[in-house]
């Protein structure tokens, strides 16, 4: 659970999910939207 100060997160890193289906399921349960980032490490 991220800590918050005045309602703003103080987490040092974004908690990227690792399972696509898990992310969709979490979005359905929380009412949030999924943010999908395709990246190239090069």
């Amino acid at each position, binding site marked *: 659970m991220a800590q918050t100060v005045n309602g703003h*997160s103080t987490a040092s890193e974004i908690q990227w999910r*690792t399972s696509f289906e898990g992310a969709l399921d979490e*979005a359905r349960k929380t009412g949030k939207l*999924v943010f999908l980032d395709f990246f190239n490490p090069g």
Partner: protein
Amino acid sequence: MGAVTYPQAEVREILERATIPIQFDNTVDAAQPIIKRYHHIWTPDLRILTGDGDELYRWNGYLPPAEFAAQLLAGLAQARLRLRAFDEAIALYEEALKRFPTSLCAPEAQYFLAVANYRKSGEGSDLLKGWHRLEGRYPLTEWTVKQDFK
């Protein structure tokens, strides 16, 4: 993006508040089914999806933190607008315009804030009032051209 934009607190806060974030390395075999599903072709490639996987907004390309945060708010607002969650869309567009009034996507946010207010109220005056504000604040943008038929 990972080195400059994502570490910034304003970006992290919006992502954590409003989204379930997930990344795919487009060089990894395991990512290929998702790459094909969303017809990915170029990075950075950012999408906003429903919990059913339907895409509601997308953009390509690197943005520095403040521009990214503004674009993310406008994208989330557009997603909520498409879902007809008008109050949420209005709040997100207003946040984008209040926090990032000179951002590159501010004209888009002003354009669709007017649309969201109109869709909520059904009053044409809400649309025209918002678009007049767009013309006044951002006179030389594509979004000003796009409302110029009125």
